[in-house]
């Protein structure tokens, strides 16, 4: 696969000051300033945040609210780029202590694709991480800017070691996808601490714990089937490590940090060369069978990316991050952010406009649900506002993969209804006092298995 580089400079670059969940950054520049490539333009003192850098050299023309691919408006720095490659001086960050490494990750603006700043995943407050996982199941190996599969494998391993170092974790694993032959071949037989590793499939109760023992290594490469989903983390942790994450908690509560390929690659680059996270590879697809990988600077409006894809016809829908769970955009002047992985365009006639009819109990949704829910029932309960009952049948387990809604012959918006129920439950329980167990322990009461 080949990666195109988006060379033409867009008219303006929109860099949101919040590209992660957590605090919005304070702008460090003001209107009229000239910024350089890699210059830090946003920062927050809060722990739950990550720095933002300029991806071009140019003049700040405004600091205002602008569209964000998650559908909201966010305070953004708008830069008019100029044709120059002037950048700030980058300095590599090799051989540092874990603490400094974590700080360096925050400074370099590295965030996970699911929106949490990487340093908070690796060093959550009050919790201890013992295992780091790199989830490579949802993106192709080219998701970063690797030249060859071999490059990919060795850089990923180095990145994993860095992540483990920053987290102070002893164990680490890279999770590949079973049907991703190219990556598996690349990792097969790779050496870690002079030991050859095999890519091991996760089957039944053989989780990473088993392979750590079997291969007698602290780093293993495993493979599993693809799972989609927005709230995939808890389920992923369970599948890979066998540790069950309680409802309302996240993997860090059981000592697991889950990172994505993108952030791992960004970390590797940052450590090697000092370049912060300011460009990313997005894939563009739709309208034809062609799929393209384009390296773009963060802040480039979708319009420019689509233009470089070469489609000029009428567009019905623009979707960020995939057709299954992505967000449809209301404007093409929305920027690529650190969390953007894919842009999909649909022609007007491809846009679905089905009308839902009654559920016919065909059980298709039950058959596809990866977490063993009864989506049809959840949808009915959400529709009727019976949230307590939907809690009894584990609505929170839903990983929001959208499979159920995609296969439903009655075209019921199941996922939407489930989200509605989840939101309602979250809001209803928000102001309740913490559960009893948290009086005994600090933080979340999950504490392990």
């Amino acid at each position, binding site marked *: 696969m080949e990666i195109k580089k988006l060379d033409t400079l867009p008219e303006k670059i929109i860099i949101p000051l919040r590209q992660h969940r957590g605090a919005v950054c304070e702008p460090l520049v003001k209107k009229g300033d000239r910024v350089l490539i890699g210059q830090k333009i946003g920062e927050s003192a809060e722990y739950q945040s990550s720095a933002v850098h300029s991806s071009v050299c140019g003049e700040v023309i405004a600091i205002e609210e602008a569209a964000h691919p998650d559908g909201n408006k966010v305070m953004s720095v708008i830069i008019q780029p100029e044709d120059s490659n002037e950048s700030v001086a980058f300095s590599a960050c090799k051989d540092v202590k874990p603490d400094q490494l974590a700080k360096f990750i925050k400074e370099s603006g590295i965030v996970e694709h699911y929106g949490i700043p990487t340093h908070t995943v690796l060093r959550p407050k009050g919790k201890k991480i013992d295992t780091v996982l790199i989830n490579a199941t949802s993106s192709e190996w080219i998701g970063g800017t690797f030249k060859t599969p071999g490059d990919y494998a060795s850089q990923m391993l180095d990145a994993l070691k860095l992540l483990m170092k920053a987290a102070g974790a002893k164990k680490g694993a890279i999770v590949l996808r079973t049907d991703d032959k190219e990556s598996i071949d690349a990792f097969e037989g790779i050496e870690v601490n002079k030991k050859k590793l095999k890519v091991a499939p996760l089957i039944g109760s053989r989780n990473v714990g088993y392979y750590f023992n079997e291969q007698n290594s602290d780093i293993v490469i495993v493979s599993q089937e693809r799972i989609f989903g927005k709230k995939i983390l808890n389920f992923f942790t369970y599948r890979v490590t066998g540790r069950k994450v309680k409802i309302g908690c996240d993997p860090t509560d059981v000592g697991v940090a889950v990172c994505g390929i993108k952030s791992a690659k960004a970390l590797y680059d940052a450590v090697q060369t000092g370049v912060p996270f300011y460009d990313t590879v997005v894939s563009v697809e739709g309208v034809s069978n062609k799929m393209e990988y384009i390296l773009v600077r963060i802040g480039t409006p979708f319009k420019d990316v689509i233009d470089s894809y070469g489609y000029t016809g009428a567009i019905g829908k623009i979707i960020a991050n995939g057709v299954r769970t992505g967000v449809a955009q209301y404007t093409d002047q929305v920027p690529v952010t650190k969390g953007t992985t894919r842009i999909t365009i649909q022609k007007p006639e491809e846009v679905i406009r089905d009308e839902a009819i009654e559920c016919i*109990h065909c059980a298709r949704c039950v058959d596809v649900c990866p977490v063993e829910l009864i989506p049809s029932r959840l949808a009915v309960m959400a529709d009727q506002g019976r949230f307590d009952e939907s809690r009894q049948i584990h609505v929170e387990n839903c990983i929001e993969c959208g499979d159920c809604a995609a296969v439903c012959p009655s075209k019921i918006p199941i996922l939407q209804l489930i989200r509605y129920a989840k939101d309602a439950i979250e809001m209803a329980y928000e102001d309740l006092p913490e559960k009893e167990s948290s009086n005994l322990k600090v933080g979340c009461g999950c504490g392990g298995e």
Partner: protein
Amino acid sequence: MTYTISAPPHKKTKLDFKTLNFSKIIALLPLCLAAIYFFGIPALGIIVASVVTAVVTEFAIQTIFKQKITIGDGHAAMLGLMLALLIPPEAPIWIPIFAAFFAITIGKHVFGGIGSYIFNPVLVAWIFTRSAWASYMTPASIPHIGQFSDLILEHGAGLMVGVSPILLIGGVYLIYKRYIDWRVPLAFFATMIILPQTLLFVSGVMALVHEGSLNPLMYMSQMFALLSPSPELSYSMIGIVFFGILFLATDTATSPVTKKGRIVYGITCGLLVFIYGYFANYVDGLIYGIFLANCVASFIEMNTMPASFGTMSCAEKAYRRVMDKIPSSLKFEVVNNE
């Protein structure tokens, strides 16, 4: 330019309710043609009367109650067709008309329409008509299979469905295409085969006990009874039973949605049909059996709700309890973490 915004997923399967219904109708067409060939014009009359009445009734009800007209989805036509196949071809023409009317009004719409009815409308109408006008609804002959050739064309068939079990192969294709679920038919079919064989075995053993035989080899030899087809098996392998397995039991609204529940439901159907059929005949047995299974479908569904993912089942818990007692040096099993 304006863009559409909507909630995900942004791509859905093309399959819809209409396709499901029409594919069932198409799967039944070969059988209809065979029935018309065997029984002639009266059979055609019954099929047309039943389908037309069903569609007209649905249209009328939805117009009167100002609902959305859904005759286009083919559901009413499918019900009418299935019903027609269960009516003896000698019946007067008002029987299918009344039955189809009853199926759509009482069977379907009184219970709330698609997805809400708890009894399969076809069965409801059949049972009502059969009880009210038993003489018209009794087929001229009860089909049973003597030779293999009867599997292909059943000459003694009394109902239209009976003419050719083999022509129901369309239903198997639907399972292959996943238009209908495989769990219910498989569990149903397996039960229908296993029960008569077990009965044969048990009765053989009982006979030996009765004779006072003490030779264990004699008892062992009864195991072979499990392999030789019992007479009951060939009685039950008739068109209507295949029809029930493939088309009636798999009706989505009246079967449970849980995975385990569908297996249990299939077994329940098989059990009930066998009991009814064994003591009477399999034509009535099938309909009453599935109808009774419809009654408990909801109960089965409620009791087979899956637990939260990763919860151990009873068997797993028992296994854990034993395995945790064994010292780890003796174990081959997977070592969990650390």
